[in-house]
């Protein structure tokens, strides 16, 4: 019963399996996409845009990994290598990790989860996407004209006085991308506050909403500081005189304070939405209500607030005063506690559940494993004495890749697989999904675990050539990177394949309890025929009933 997606056929086959009059068929042609104010379409526009930047940054990473196969810098010049790791950093942070879950999954799912027809400011939402595209164009323009070689951290005085690459155009790109995420943040906060369905009190909200609300708080309060910092750096570079310049008595450490005041909360912008997705996946695929709902919800808020007072742990060896270092070290330990609470609660949720291992669940379990390792190594770099040794080495690289790639990207893939039937109305191929998840998990560990060893051995980061004794671990890491590459290409293929030939999904393929599953998939333009009334707390799964049912899923 394979009905083509464009509803030209006269037979109205509203078989519940595939809603013919949905938001995809509500308008045809490029104009309907470029002028849409439908939060669902804007989510898809963001998906295609971040895919482009992810691929560019991934190619940069691949080239770096190949270069690091040999101790001598013989494949590419050190100049090119510096530009590669800068591109990898900038594009991954600002054009993939920060927008991915909020702007793609968040835009698509938040209004539906709270029973609203759209976000609070739909036109602003579209404007946010146009800002994002303009920012991407600026970044690519800077890239084409020779790229930037300052690293994604833009430390002065190198970025202002000594770098001779296209710093200002890249900084302008990030400046504009910052405003795109500020607008998304404002939109989500107002939507969640003002547009919840009747009966949907705060403690009946799905945990994905809690996580994205906390993320939006950080988006809104931290990003402006990045904007002013990049603006100050750019003006200082343009005029040759500025407040970070030691010749004027300025202090380069002040730039680091301003930069990291944004950039540490930014890593929580990246991981919090991932945690929200995992709360959804663990409950749905273990058919069980979350363990400690209030604690998991509040730990998202705690992470958002505590995330603002710990940035000094990036500057332990930067000639920041040792007493400030001690304050930041203690606070950094405390910010790890809410993350621990979340992991323990997910583990406890599995108890007495009825666990199935579809692709989203594999990604969720992978997330818990890798995020726990990432978070715990965070304790090592938060410890003052150890950080003196491992700061700016591959130990730190491994730490944040375990959290961003092992955590956030796994969660994004899990979320994408979980909501794919709702977005497209079609199911992805289950076998290939599981295979890709496992390949990604193995490839990831092989890539980044050796880097912990390299880091403690003392191999500094951003090194184009290194002493011979580090070669063996680098070869292992590059091997892992190639497997990881395969793990990411597979979903690209079968997702595209599923658009045309995936099995029809029907409104609720996972028998999940969120409001977004109580409407057809793909959903109609206004999400619900009638605004749903929320009556009970979320995740009302019943593992026992599920076991009796025990349907053999294909």
């Amino acid at each position, binding site marked *: 019963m394979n009905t083509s997606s464009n509803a030209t056929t006269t037979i109205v086959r509203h078989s519940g399996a595939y809603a013919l009059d949905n938001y995809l068929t509500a308008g045809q042609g490029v104009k309907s996409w470029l002028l849409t104010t439908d939060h669902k379409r804007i989510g898809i526009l963001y998906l295609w845009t971040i895919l482009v930047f992810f691929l560019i940054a991934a190619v940069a990473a691949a080239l770096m990994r190949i270069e690091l196969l040999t101790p001598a810098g013989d494949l590419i010049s050190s100049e090119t290598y510096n530009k590669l790791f800068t591109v990898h950093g900038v594009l991954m942070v600002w054009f993939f990790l920060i927008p991915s879950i909020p702007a793609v999954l968040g835009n698509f799912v938040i*209004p539906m989860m709270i029973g*609203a*027809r*759209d*976000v*609070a*400011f*739909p036109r602003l939402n579209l404007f946010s996407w146009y800002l994002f595209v303009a920012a991407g164009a600026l970044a690519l323009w800077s890239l084409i004209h020779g790229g930037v070689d300052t690293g994604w951290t833009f430390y002065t005085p190198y970025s202002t006085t000594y770098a001779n690459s296209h710093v200002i155009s890249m900084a302008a790109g990030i400046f504009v991308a910052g405003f795109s995420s*500020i607008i998304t*943040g*404002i*939109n989500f*906060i*107002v939507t969640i*506050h*003002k*547009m919840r369905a009747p009966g949907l009190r705060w403690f009946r909200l799905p945990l994905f909403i809690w996580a994205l609300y906390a993320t939006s708080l950080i988006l*809104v*309060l*931290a*990003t*402006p*500081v990045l*904007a*002013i*910092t990049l603006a*100050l750096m750019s*003006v200082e570079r343009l*005029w*040759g*005189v*500025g*407040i970070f310049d030691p*010749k*004027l*008595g*300025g*202090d380069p450490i*002040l730039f680091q*304070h*301003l930069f990291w005041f944004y950039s540490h909360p930014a890593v929580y912008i990246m991981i919090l939405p991932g945690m929200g997705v995992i709360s959804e996946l663990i409950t749905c695929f273990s058919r069980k209500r979350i363990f400690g709902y209030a604690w998991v919800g509040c730990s998202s808020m705690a992470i958002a607030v505590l995330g603002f007072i710990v940035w000094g742990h990036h500057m332990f060896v930067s000639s920041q005063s040792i007493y400030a270092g001690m304050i930041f070290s203690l606070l950094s330990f405390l910010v790890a506690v809410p993350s621990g609470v979340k992991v323990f609660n997910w583990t406890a949720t599995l108890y007495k559940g009825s666990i199935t291992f579809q692709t989203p669940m594999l990604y969720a379990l992978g997330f818990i494993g890798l995020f726990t390792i990432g978070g715990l190594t965070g304790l090592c770099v938060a410890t003052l004495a150890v950080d003196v040794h491992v700061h700016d080495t591959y130990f730190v690289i491994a730490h944040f890749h375990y959290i961003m790639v092992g955590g956030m990207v796994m969660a994004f893939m899990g979320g994408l697989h979980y909501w794919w039937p709702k977005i497209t109305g079609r199911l992805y191929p289950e076998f290939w999904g599981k295979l890709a998840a496992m390949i990604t998990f193995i490839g990831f560990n092989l890539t980044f675990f050796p880097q912990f060893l390299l880091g403690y051995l003392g191999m500094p980061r951003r090194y184009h050539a290194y002493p011979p004794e580090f070669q063996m671990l680098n070869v292992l890491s590059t091997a892992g990177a190639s497997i990881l590459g395969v793990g990411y290409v597979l979903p690209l293929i079968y997702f595209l394949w599923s658009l045309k030939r995936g099995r029809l999904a029907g409104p609720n393929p996972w028998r999940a309890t969120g409001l977004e599953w109580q409407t057809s998939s793909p959903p109609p333009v*206004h999400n619900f025929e009638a*605004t749903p009334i929320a009556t009970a707390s979320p995740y009302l799964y019943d593992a026992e009933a599920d076991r009796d049912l025990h349907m053999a899923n294909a």
Partner: protein
Amino acid sequence: MNATTTAVVAEQFDDIQQQHSAAKLGMWIFLATEVMFFGGLFLAYTVYRFTYGHVFALASRHLDDVFGGANTAVLLFSSLLMALAVRAAELDRRKQLVRLLLATALFGILFMTIKGFEYRKDFVEHLVPRFDFRWDGSDAANAELFFWIYFALTGLHAIHVTVGIALILVLALLARAGKFSPNFMPVEITGLYWHFVDIIWVFLFPLLYLAGHR
């Protein structure tokens, strides 16, 4: 509020109250981001005043506090006019609204002209960093740092004032065409923005002009 319910309610909202409170909340959050945006510069000011307090006091004496004080009064008065304009919009008195909006914009322009004269005076006195900055005292470097922060803060604020004036003039045009009879929210939103710009100047004046006793 006598806004009739037949006012145009955007499709995603259930009623006009929800739309209004959403718009106000959104604007207030945007103002919080503006506080953090200016905050980076306030941090630079605080840190360098802490490290080079003596020079900052000396340098701030070179700023003309008459210009600064007058500008504060002008902006405070324009804030008053804006508040009255929002009330007029609420009570749907179109002519009074247009007059008050124009008056507010006028005082905004007055602020910018005073600012222009002040910048010209600073330029003549060679106080503009990078553009032939001259300083007779001993630590010209730190003084240049003060003036760099001064021009960064007041320049950023001036940009915000200019944007505000443009917004208010557009509002005046739309008000004349009666666009705000049921839905006066855009006037209130712009009013919030204008008051915020005034608050920023309220902090700039003592910090920059009165750093050292005159």
